[in-house]
């Protein structure tokens, strides 16, 4: 344990920690800040978010046909209010926009003055009522055209399997209420947080073995009592460090994420016609979040072993960094999207995720044991 502490100290040198801090800050400003600051992003997203909350308040986490009728009634009421709003304004009546229906279907491309009038309400005055109506329309549409999920959940041109159809059917029948805005926002955030964590791990772990080799300290390490066990200990150090970095990054992120005020949705089921997503399991939003966290940890530990082994084998920094370029591209473009974001989605087979993670864990453990074994016998020449 003492050796691991010493090794941790070597990894978390002040200058490295400072650089990591700066890198994280820049990354936050570029890719994460926006989704935290501008949530929900614009309108009618804001209105959808509010209405989703209202729905849960009124109907609970599920909505049945009766409640849907009620929801539609509220919409009609608001529509009447919109009609009244328009009729109270002479210029709209004059332009023939005396009902909401006409307002909504007006051809704004052709007539300049009509465009001006609609813009006035939507963008200049930003009348809440009209935005809300739009959001309600969308939600009603999603509910009424819920069978659309069948085509939406296809993966490429593949036909749906019986299991997939079953899940979609269940989801449609459930009437689960979940906000698409909240779900999308979280997915975008966790994707970027995962990327940031990957970058942090790569940055901090890469020097772990290379540094000692370049300093010619390995001769001393391997001829000491601890001997080649140090290799194993250093791998463990790397894993501990990676776990620590991941925990801190995730911790910081979730503290900031609390500002997005999604508490009400944590117990909502993410299989919903409103999120347009169906998953293999009946997950609540909170369970989904936990699942993404677990998957990030597994990913991180495998990555750590790969990076550490690379650091042990690469002759110099250009190689250790250069070889991680394809690894990073693979992670950012493919792996994170399939193994962290939207996991357990029915677009992919039910066994995809478990087998992918079993594979990852196998790769990780194989590399771990292979490199430890190899290191036991290697001749230390230079």
């Amino acid at each position, binding site marked *: 344990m003492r050796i691991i502490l010493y090794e941790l100290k070597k990894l978390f040198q002040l200058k490295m920690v400072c*650089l990591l801090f700066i*890198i994280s800050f*820049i990354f936050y*400003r570029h890719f994460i800040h926006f989704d935290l600051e501008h949530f929900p992003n614009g309108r009618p997203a804001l209105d959808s978010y509010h209405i989703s909350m209202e729905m849960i308040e009124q109907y609970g986490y599920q909505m049945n046909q009766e409640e849907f009728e009620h929801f539609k009634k509220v919409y009609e009421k608001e529509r009447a209010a919109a009609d009244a709003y328009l009729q109270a304004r002479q210029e709209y009546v004059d332009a023939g926009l005396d009902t909401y229906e006409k307002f909504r279907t007006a051809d704004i491309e052709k007539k300049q003055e009509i465009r001006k009038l609609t813009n006035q309400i939507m963008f200049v005055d930003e009348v809440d009522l009209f935005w809300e109506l739009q959001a309600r329309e969308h939600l009603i549409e999603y509910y009424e055209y819920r069978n659309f999920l069948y085509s939406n959940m296809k993966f490429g041109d593949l036909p749906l399997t019986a299991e997939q159809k079953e899940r979609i059917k269940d989801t449609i029948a459930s009437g689960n209420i979940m906000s698409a805005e909240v779900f999308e926002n979280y997915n975008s955030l966790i994707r970027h947080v995962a990327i940031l964590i990957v970058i942090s791990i790569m940055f901090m772990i890469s020097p772990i073995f290379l540094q000692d080799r370049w300093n010619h300290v390995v001769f001393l390490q391997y001829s000491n009592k601890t001997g080649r066990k140090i290799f194993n200990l250093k791998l463990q150090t790397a894993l501990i460090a990676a776990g620590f970095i991941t925990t801190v990054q995730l911790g910081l992120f979730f503290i900031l994420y609390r500002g997005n005020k999604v508490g009400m949705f944590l117990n909502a089921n993410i299989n919903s016609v409103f999120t347009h997503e169906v998953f293999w399991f009946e997950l609540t939003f909170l369970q989904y979040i936990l699942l993404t966290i677990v998957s990030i940890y597994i990913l991180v530990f495998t990555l750590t072993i790969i990076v550490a082994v690379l650091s042990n084998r690469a002759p*110099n920094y*250009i*190689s250790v960094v250069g*070889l991680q*370029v394809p690894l990073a591209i693979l992670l950012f473009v493919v792996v994170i999207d399939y193994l962290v974001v939207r996991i357990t989605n029915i677009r992919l087979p039910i066994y995809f995720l478990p087998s992918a993670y079993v594979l990852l864990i196998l790769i990780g453990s194989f590399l771990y044991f292979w490199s430890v074994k190899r290191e036991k016998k290697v001749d230390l020449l230079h």
Partner: protein
Amino acid sequence: MNVLRFELKKAFQSPVVSILIMLFLFFNFWLIYKHAGIREELKVTNQLVERFGYKIDSEMSAKLQDYYQSKLQKMNKLTNEKFGKTYERAGDFFAEYEHRNKELSEEELHVITETAIVESYYELIQKIDQTYRHLDLSQNAKMDIKGYGLSGKTAEVTREYYIKLKNRLDELIEAGEHKNLFFIGYVYHMHSFLFKDLMRQMIFEVMILVVLITGHVTTYEFQNQTCLTVYASKRGRKLMLDKLVANLFASLCICAVILGATLLVYFLVFDYSGLWGIPISSFFNSEFSFPYISWWKLPFGIYLSCVLVVFIICQLFFTVITYSIAVWIKNNYLVYAVFAILFGFCVLIPGIIPKNLTAIFWTRYTPFSLILNPHLWFIGWNVFTPKKYEWTTTVIWTCLLAIATVVTFLKFNKEQID
């Protein structure tokens, strides 16, 4: 010269450089391959240019109409035989496309597709004048001001900007620069594909390689503990100068390999013959409701060359930037990190400056901001792409980096090496 060769060897001896070059070229070829499905359709443009020239005027328009009519007739004859049906427009056929395509041979389908493309050209030509008449740049100014939240001085700059762009637009319309055939931008997005997707991808690829190599070569002696012997030799600290030259040369080599191979394949796949002289501001090149308006009259060939020049200059900037960092830090791992941070900061700064300060404009004059939108180089697109943006950035940074290099040298010459 001999010394230079040894320094260059250090740049390329690491197998990771070749591995990355291969990988990047593979990515580029893959991207081209994914887009290659339209290459047959693009050939119609070349045929039209061959037949009528690319300049659009009433005479050409009339000829094109005749050509189109004859094509349509041929097509209708074919469809009449096959399905007992004729079409007013070739496009109408494709409304039913899904049901009919299996009953047609590839050749027959080709006839119809070709007719549809010629038809698009014919119809779009009729729309050119109307489209340009409807361009209201003061609206763009308003949208920019609202969209970016500009106010005060910056809003003023935006209005002036669009007045300037309007002048250029008038001039362009006057000269008929927009009335030229090109691949239909609305459909094929060739400008975005070449200059945004492919070019930007290459910019980042070459940048990664250039930074890796420069950091490696510059810090080589300090990393290998040969600094004592090397910098005490006759060449001594002037070796740092050799290293700079070697780095710049290596960067040029990387540019040549990546650009050369990728563009070669690109132009083999997509036929641009006969299109090299067509101005980039052509109506057909535009992909959105707002057309690409180049600040000068730039035929495609010249435009491409200018873009390549800026591309290479930017890469040389990255070389010198990395080099200067490396001379100070001497540990290439940290050099890479510092470069990444510098990149991040330079791109970040314009975004966090209050929107009423003109600093939001001039902080963008960095190679880092410049490389983000290669498809808008030399083009007036929004308030952040002013005339001479590229050249001003280039000149400013040449001066800045010259100073930085001199300071770096002076510092290194006095430095204690241990």
